[in-house]
């Protein structure tokens, strides 16, 4: 488990980090918490010439109240996210999903932004940020730009980030008082999701005002279950309504087939788990 040789820098500001990326060419890798990159390096599945370690960028760590939304620093660890009271109050779905990530050791090292930028379709934070319409704040050599989650995830392990750009922050609109649940299905506790469903529901007077549903590992990118959401709006928050809506969960998805689940089974799981996630969310 010895990686190929690589150069290493650990810049102390975002500007320095961006400069390092620009100088590193195509062959540069960003390391946040290292929970995905280090195994890949050790297995020699990647052989970058330069690794830019962000662990000194304390400015990218932490959660801030920004009026209608929360700003979550890219280097905030999963452990910090799951314990953060702002997130619990205004973006409970993210806290719920983060609790299911891998194991305690990984959650202490792994970061919110690192997971999102890695864009593993089985990663647990992609569907929640998509469902919540989060915005990715990106810094590159020409300054900052913002990309909505719906445009950020492009393909397997591929995002809108250019090689010389860094995800520095995620803006999450507050969904205060919404019910939320992340329903994860896997074979052992620390494994990736076979399928998971992120659901957030705004219920008022027994009626569903708005519902947001994101699916994990139902395609090369996280998927919004729009048909489910539409079927719920304005309906009573009952199990019957939810289960009928959940039947639409696999619409518009393109899940892969593998040894854990073939396409048919994944589509079935998406429907079952969407029902469970929503039923849990409305009582949450």
């Amino acid at each position: 488990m010895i990686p190929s040789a690589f150069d290493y820098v650990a810049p102390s500001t975002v500007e320095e980090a961006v400069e390092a990326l620009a100088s590193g060419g195509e062959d540069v890798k960003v390391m946040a918490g290292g929970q995905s990159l280090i195994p890949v390096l050790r297995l020699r599945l990647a052989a970058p010439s330069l690794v830019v370690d962000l662990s000194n960028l304390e400015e990218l760590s932490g959660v801030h109240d920004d009026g209608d939304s929360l700003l979550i620093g890219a280097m905030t660890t999963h452990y910090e996210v799951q314990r953060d009271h702002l997130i619990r109050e205004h973006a409970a779905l993210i806290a719920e999903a983060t609790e299911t990530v891998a194991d305690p050791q990984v959650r202490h090292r792994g970061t919110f932004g690192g997971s999102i930028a890695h864009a593993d379709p089985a990663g647990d934070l992609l569907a929640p940020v998509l469902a919540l319409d989060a915005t990715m704040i990106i810094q590159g050599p020409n300054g900052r730009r913002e990309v909505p989650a719906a445009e950020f995830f492009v393909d397997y392990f591929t995002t809108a980030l250019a090689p010389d750009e860094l995800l520095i922050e995620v803006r999450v609109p507050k969904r205060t008082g919404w019910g939320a649940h992340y329903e994860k299905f896997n074979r052992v506790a620390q494994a990736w999701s076979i399928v998971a469903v992120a659901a957030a529901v705004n219920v008022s007077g027994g009626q569903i005002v708005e519902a947001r549903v994101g699916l994990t590992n139902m395609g090369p990118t996280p998927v919004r279950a729009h048909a489910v959401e539409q079927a719920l709006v304005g309906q009573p928050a009952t199990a019957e309504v939810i289960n009928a809506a959940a039947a639409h969960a696999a619409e518009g998805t393109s899940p892969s087939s593998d040894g854990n689940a073939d396409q048919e089974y994944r589509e079935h799981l998406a429907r079952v788990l969407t029902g469970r996630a929503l039923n849990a969310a409305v009582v949450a």
Partner: protein
Amino acid sequence: MTSTIEPELGKARRRKEDARLITGNTKWTDNIHLTGMLHMAVLRSPMAHARITGIDVTHAAAMPGVLMVLTGADLAEEQGSLPCAWPITEDMVAPPAPAIAVDSVNFAGEAVAIVIADSDYAAHDALEAIDVEYEELPVVLDMEEALKEGADLVHPDLGTNKNATWIFDSAEAGTGSDVEQAISEAEVVVERTFRQQRLIPAFMEPRSVVVDPSAGMFTMWSATQVPHILRWMLAAVLGEPEHKIRVIAPDVGGGFGGKLQVTPEEVLCFLVARRMGKPVKWTETRTESMLSGHHGRDQIQKLTLSARRDGTVTGLKVELLADMGAYLRLVTPGVPILGAFMFNAIYKFPSYRFVCTNVFTNKVPTDAYRGAGRPEATFAIERMMDELAVELDRDPMELRRQNWIAHDEFPFTTVAGLTYDTGNYEAATDRAMELFGYDALRREQAERRDRKDPVQLGIGISTFTEMCGLAPSRVLGALRYAAGGWEHAALRMLPTGKVQLITGTSPHGQGHVTAWSQIVADRLGVAFEDVDVLHSDTQISFKGMDSYGSRSLAVGGTAIVMAADKVLAKARTLAAHMMEAGEEDVEFNAGQFSVRGTGTSTSLGDVVLAAHVAHDLPDGMEPGMDADATFDPENFSFPHGTHLCATEVDTETGAVKIRSYVCVDDVGKVVNPLIVEGQVHGGLAQGIAQALFEEAVHDESGTLMTATLADYLLPSAVDLPNFTTDRTETPADTNPLGVKGVGEAGTIASTPAVVNAVIDAVRHLGVHDIEMPCTPMRVWKAVHKGQTEGVPTGPGAGGGLGSIDSQGGAQ
């Protein structure tokens, strides 16, 4: 020397080993650094079957830090063939087994070149610079296909993919009647085929080897279970004199049979050290371990069971295909044969036939893995008893009870020719049923079925026995095994009253140092703390057969008792001499010799000192109080137990949750209940893992798809239930300690209990079998599609490191 008051045997002592193992203040092979030590890295074939048409090492050899790059061609003359110590039949066919491939590769992961460098980093970097040209050959993966006429051959020179066929027939052996007749006359016949998936031992410490050729001999440190066997085999394979080889197994982090081996890398390190005259180290990565260390199980089991309508079993026929992989390793062909005597299990079958056909494929060789042969047998018979119960509409426990050997029928000679010395299946079962709440769970099951609950409850039973204490040497000889099955112990009685025990067993996580200290303390009346145990170094422990097959206590422990009794016999003579009494009047109790009916006494310590200084010994007595003993068992030992599992099966997703697990094991007398408990827990985890989680999966090209622990799923504590364990204690009468062995019991018993429970939960939905591991997709397909086999399992896209593309993926 202090005397102990509380009995040592049966005391739940914490392990002496734990503090240093937990803090890491100890010696693993990979911690060893010798002056001038070189590092070896191994290039492995990505192809499962190919001719090597060229290897270019020039770039690699020129890289910084690289001293030498060697290929199979360079080592062909001196590497010999890796040993197989168990040629199961006279006409068995087998290819030479090179440590490094010379002309062709026969499994993906086989060594094709080695780099020797001054650092591990340099050695690994150079691997990428070696250019190997392969000419692909047809890949043989499926055992049934491999046996067909005109099949592609793993080893064309052999002319067949069949290694051997091994048969036991009770009519021919005179141990029972003819099974074909029983089947043809039967009122009920149940036929089933089960698949034992391929498993990977997955010990915690990856394998590591250091060879030091200095000081006129070869010293090998290796993470092995079998230092004694390894030394013998190295001498045999490499032509190096045995007395010039010393093998040391320092602390070894688990083995489960996976380190019961003479590995290619041990041989290669030896060859490199010999060639270069410098110490060499090799330590594998986890993926390397999974690609090249031997695997376990991998059988197709066809069973035919005949019975009368009243439930009495009349015959059992077992037809196995066993996957050897590409080569025979140390005991590869014998592993399925260890199961031959166990399919009849605890039941009184009057007729029995076992036929095993061993098959070569282009996969990693199989060999011993926790239970070796016996888990396969236990799984098959316990599944079959459930199937028979369904066929006859009987309660599965009642049916077992009707057919098992009653406690008053022991000793009982089985249809497979073994004599079970003792056992009490009724007692263990009654206790387990009580702890489990069997009747209440059956009621809940019926209720859930009635209301069509999406979560269905299943109850699984496994009333198992196993043969442990390998093994009577004459039996091994009759089975054509190359070695004996005895064990050795020596006691060094030091002049200050401390005791060093030298054992031929080779612990690798079991806690022998603690348990053996307890035996010595108990027998000699010395303090537990005053005993140390020396082991696993052929220079110190000069005689031994190592640890595997739940043998260490039943065989090695008995040798300790015999050696201690020799010490006491001699000490008694000297004590009588010292106290001027007749030997017949001398009593020994708690470390003290005393003269019956008088106040005169002397301690064992004083007697040992007197023997050591030898100033005044009886005529003809040699100085010193040391003794040694070798024990060759007359019979195996036969632990048994009743395991009960309740599973909740989510019929909507196929997910299986173990709701409760109860086991009552009878492992005979217990030296240390804490260690026994730990062995049971670990064994259960491993057996449950076979039922639900683990499988080595190959793609159609023979590439192992589950070569990381992200893809090969080992359960952790959160994936397992709380276990309810208890014991009954029926002493074995074949050894003085009355012990049986516990290292494999949990693994052997638990797999069928879990699978039976899964099937039981969904049987009313038309399911009669689900292949292991019972993954959620398999369970769901069985319930909803009627599909019970051929459902793939393995790594998932985006669900494992295997999904990450070669560019590393991120961003």
